[in-house]
């Protein structure tokens, strides 16, 4: 019988240097833009003009350029915090697909605080209470999945996925039910419509020149720095890395794996809830679908960045530019809509996922064995 062997086999290799990886990503983005350019051309849109408008996000030539920057920040902050939080869970190989649900719960409970406590608190205290309520709401919604996973081995990917929709319809119930007790709605409106938050529940802004700097951006950057230190320079952060690499090693080393998982997932989900709270207090109003898909996009960002903190900042900037830019540019082109950003995002990720293989593995020519 002939002994057939494949020509190549695959061998793991040490991670390629950062230079090579950055190169792979730049190539991925460039390639995705090229694919996009072909598609745009097919639609009869001049790609270069479209891309110029997309990358400048319609800011130059706008009558209110600073307003565009403020809107950009509003889109950027929730994505940044959510991606950081998801990366925390992914580091432990806990597949938290439930970012959407946790974000909604955070937004809901922050809104609850805003409507209930209303004008009784001064602005900084009110915003802080909302942030805490949002974090608690998101955190509890995530942590009980972690507890089930630890105790019974429940599949967390599927469970968090289901809970996203439970949360969504829970919020929609309050958005669409016009009754006396539903204090979320605007009593003046005959149709069900969320009421605006009281003044004190709006996110603080600091005037920086012509720009009203949203304080949640400062908070988000602080969170990034703290998480970076937490993950790289504390015992608890080290425990996360060990559990992620090998739960058995962690167990032999005497770590309480269950407790570490529950603690970390609470932190992760609470941060996502916090992002939800920041989002609604910046908007000053609840909405029936507040997430802007950050729970999904955050997964993309965390993965693009290889769960690396600095990388997450860069990747969430990139994705926000794509999304916000496509929105702005599509205003000029009726045949291209904001979903074009999703298409580009998909292509970028496909290429990065494929390129990852070549930084993780090597192809080795199979040597002829048994040749006489």
């Amino acid at each position, binding site marked *: 019988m002939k002994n057939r062997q494949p020509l190549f086999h695959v061998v793991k290799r040490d991670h390629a240097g950062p230079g090579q990886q950055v190169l792979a990503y730049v190539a991925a983005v460039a390639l995705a833009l090229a694919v996009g350019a072909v598609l745009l051309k097919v639609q009869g849109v001049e790609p270069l003009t479209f891309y110029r408008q997309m990358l400048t996000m319609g800011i130059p030539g706008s009558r209110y350029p600073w307003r565009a920057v403020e809107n950009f920040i509003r889109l950027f902050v929730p994505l940044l915090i959510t991606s950081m939080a998801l990366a925390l869970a992914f580091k432990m190989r806990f597949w938290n697909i439930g970012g959407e649900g946790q974000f909604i719960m955070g937004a809901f409970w922050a809104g609850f605080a805003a409507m209930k406590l209303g004008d009784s608190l001064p602005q900084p205290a009110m915003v802080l209470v909302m942030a805490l309520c949002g974090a608690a709401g998101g955190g509890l919604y995530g942590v009980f999945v972690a507890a089930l996973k630890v105790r019974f081995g429940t599949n967390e990917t599927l469970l968090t996925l289901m809970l996203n929709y439970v949360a969504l319809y829970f919020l929609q119930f309050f958005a669409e039910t016009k009754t006396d007790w539903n204090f979320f709605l605007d009593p003046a409106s005959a149709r069900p419509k969320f009421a605006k938050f009281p003044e004190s529940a709006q996110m603080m802004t600091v005037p920086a020149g012509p720009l009203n700097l949203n304080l949640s951006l400062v908070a988000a950057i602080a969170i990034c720095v703290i998480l970076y230190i937490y993950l790289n320079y504390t015992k608890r952060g080290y425990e996360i890395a060990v559990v992620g690499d090998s739960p058995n090693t962690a167990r032999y080393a005497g770590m309480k794996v269950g407790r570490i998982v529950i603690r970390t997932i609470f932190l992760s989900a609470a941060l996502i809830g916090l992002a939800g709270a920041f989002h609604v207090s910046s908007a000053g109003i609840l909405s029936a679908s507040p997430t802007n898909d950050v729970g999904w996009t955050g997964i993309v960002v965390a993965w693009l960045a290889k769960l690396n903190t600095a990388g997450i900042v860069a990747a969430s900037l990139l994705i926000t530019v794509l999304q916000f830019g496509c929105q702005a540019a599509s205003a000029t082109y009726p045949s291209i809509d904001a979903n074009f950003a*999703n298409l580009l995002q*998909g292509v970028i990720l*496909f290429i990065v996922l494929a390129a990852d293989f070549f930084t993780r593995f090597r192809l080795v020519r199979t040597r002829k064995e048994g040749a006489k």
Partner: protein
Amino acid sequence: MNDPVNVLTLFLFNIVLVNIPLLYGTVGEIVVEKAGSLDLGVEGTMAVGAIFGYLAGCAANSILVGLAVSFLTAGLCGLLFALLTVSLQANQNVTGLTITTFGLGLYFFVGKGIGERWPAMTAADSLVKGYSALEIPGLSKLPVIGKVLFSHNVLVYLGVVIAVLVWWYLGFTKTGLRLRAVGENPAAADSVGVNTLLYKYVHLIAGSGIMGLGGFYMALYMSGSFEGSNCWINGYGWIAIALVIFANWNPVLAILGTLVFGFFNTLQIYAGALAGAFPGPLGWLSAVPPQLYKALPFLITAIVLVASSVRKREGSGQPAALGLNYFREER
């Protein structure tokens, strides 16, 4: 019109009509998951199959061409998934979600791009004819049941036939049993000479293709009217992922599950009519918030998921290697 029997018949009829796309999505995902892969890209795959199947079906004025193209284009999504996760060892969750993002992006890009030139379904007369109700002789004359089960369009019957065939294939054929071995323990299957790579590729592509057929159904059900804001699939792909769990990875149970989920899905539209037709026993229906009906499929699935993990029962159909990549060199 408000005759109670009529309302009930129409309600039951719609449970079948509106929800069979779920069955396609579910059966497709069962095939994929039995190969050991968790594909979260059902929504995107169905959207791709839907739009290309519809456009091709209209252009060729044929339901068969539409079916074939939706199967093939959705199958390409499966090929992409297989290429990335099987050959290139990429993470399955991330890849699946990306297929959804990409698929929906493509759906809107193509739809918006065609714009004014969008083909109307009414212009393709044999497509319309192919989709029109096919009354099964004899059976369709039965009271209530005849209308509810035996006077549907051909895609309804096809969906049920595919589900039964896949059930037979997975449970009673040699290749089907080998496929399940690949999903349970790829290393063991590999060691007895099963070509795991080939099995995964073929079934990921075929499963995705079946999802695409459901997308095509959805397109025809929506009479092919493209809206810029809402995709035809409208979350069915996600419900299908839930339904796989609810049906315990069994295609025949998936038929039953489709009807259960479909019951809630349709109830949110028919609650008012049913409450009006049966004010005594069903009057309370109109008081239930519609959001509860929407949430119930997901809520029930979450409970099933938790309950089955608590009981660790023997009969769970969840493949043991679900979601794990198989890296041959690490056997």
